[in-house]
């Protein structure tokens, strides 16, 4: 008989840290990663030797990048592994750190994501293609934008409002790559990229790091960690794409089945969510995914957005960190940074972007392939 994460022993996020997401720079990845890990250790008020296992999420650094970074914390001999799962690398690392602690194998584990914007290299499958070389991610999502607009009679302005909200949130986040508020005119008037997508509706290219330390109740007691600031992971689900009916968008269909399983695992309904951090690499995704998660019926996302229901202080704050559009998407760190944002919000420590009374948060990532990961954290 199999069991889900919340049927094992409880696991809590106890330390969070970042190196700010930023434009590509000369800073070595080692410095990015160490900054995030040391911040997470300081946040948990524990020392490095307490960490029994490390999961290093990175998609673009190449083979065996973890040990040349971790050794500078003092080589403890603890196991480490690398996790590559495209955009969901960080979410996947977090899931496996949680599983290791929940299973009882370790009391304290680290998930750290770090990346530099190196070229993406994918191996040839041996199957030909018509024009996939001409269809980069922003065109994949420009096609979905066109479909959403026509199906739900949503204008380019309606969809661009997602970016206005997320740039506003990012402007209040010191770890965000883009920290500038943008008007609707600025968003729409920017450089056109593909279809109706403009540059400010697309995630920027960047680098950075994020770290989360998870611990069991035994670990929290033994190390004297402040249990009042520990946030429990109550659901963890990973899925990969199946064959959907012809014409169905796989990103949304995969998100729906993954989110449904996570909500069932935590015994929650979509209306119970106070915070969602989701994969808004492109504006239309936020609308597609809140509808897939079940926050509103299909096609009603624009109305919620316009009513302010998705703002910080609204019914459910979507991407209070600024999301991938404003906070950024350095790949390996992104899913871990989402967990850090939710932890900060649920502790009530999010400062000027605090969503009042937040008790339940959901983190969602999709990765090309496609894979989908959803976590739920609760106070």
């Amino acid at each position: 008989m199999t069991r889900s994460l919340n049927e094992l022993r409880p696991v809590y996020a106890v330390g969070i840290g970042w190196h700010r997401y930023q434009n590509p720079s000369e800073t070595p990845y080692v410095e990015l990663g160490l900054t995030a890990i040391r911040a997470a250790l300081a946040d948990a008020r524990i020392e490095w030797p307490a960490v029994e296992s490390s999961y290093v999420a990175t998609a673009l650094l190449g083979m065996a990048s973890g040990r040349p970074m971790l050794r500078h914390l003092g080589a403890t001999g603890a196991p480490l592994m690398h996790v590559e799962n495209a955009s969901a690398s960080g979410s996947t690392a977090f899931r496996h750190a949680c599983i290791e602690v929940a299973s009882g194998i370790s009391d304290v584990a680290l998930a750290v994501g770090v990346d530099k914007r190196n070229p993406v290299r994918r191996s040839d499958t041996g199957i030909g293609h018509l024009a996939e070389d001409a269809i980069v991610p922003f065109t994949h999502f420009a096609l979905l934008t066109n479909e959403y607009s026509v199906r739900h009679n949503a204008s380019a302005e309606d969809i661009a409002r997602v970016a206005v909200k997320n740039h506003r949130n990012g402007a209040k986040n010191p770890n965000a790559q883009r920290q500038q508020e943008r008007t609707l005119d600025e968003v729409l008037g920017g450089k056109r990229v593909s279809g109706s997508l403009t540059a400010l509706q697309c995630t920027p290219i960047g680098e950075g790091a994020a770290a989360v330390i998870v611990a069991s109740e035994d670990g929290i007691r033994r190390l004297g960690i402040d249990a009042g600031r520990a946030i429990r992971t109550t659901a963890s689900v990973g899925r990969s794409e199946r064959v959907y009916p012809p014409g169905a968008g796989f990103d949304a269909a995969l998100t729906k089945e993954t989110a449904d399983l996570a909500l069932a695992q935590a015994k929650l309904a979509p209306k119970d969510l106070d915070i969602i951090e989701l994969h808004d690499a492109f504006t239309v995704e936020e609308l597609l995914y809140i509808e897939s998660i079940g926050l509103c019926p299909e096609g009603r996302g624009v109305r919620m957005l316009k009513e302010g229901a998705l703002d910080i202080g609204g019914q459910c704050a979507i991407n209070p960190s600024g999301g991938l559009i404003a906070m950024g998407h350095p790949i390996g760190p992104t899913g871990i940074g989402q967990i850090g944002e939710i932890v900060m919000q649920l502790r009530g420590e999010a400062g000027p972007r605090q969503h009042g009374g937040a008790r339940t948060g959901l983190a969602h990532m999709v990765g090309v392939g496609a894979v989908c990961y959803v976590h739920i954290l609760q106070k």
Partner: protein
Amino acid sequence: MQPSKLLKPGLYSEGSSDREGATVRLKGGRCRCGYVFFPMQTYGCERCGSHGDALTSCELPANGTLLAEATVHLHADKNRPAPFTIVKVALDDGPVIRTLLADDSAPVAPGQRVTGRLAAVGQSESGETVLDLRFSIAS
């Protein structure tokens, strides 16, 4: 007539010609379970996992309904200068494909019927006209 060759002969072949030009037959596959896919491959069926004799080649007419279009304004690859338009087409036989709209096509919108034809896209080193698949509104 000038000699010509197909850019991707593994993926399509020339069909009958009408007054708009040469139509295209896509080289798809069909599984014993009924699943139709493009392009043909023998690794295994994405729906049921069958392989070997369970998978057979089949020709798919390049006729379908437009699901979405996007004109690409920026593209890093210098071999494909922007702008160009990508179309997502639900073929009448089932598979959904994504490829290029013909440069001389009228603007398209979701729901329209579209057809794939061969279009000249360049010259080979030996002087043949290179033909590739491009979609446009069905006549």
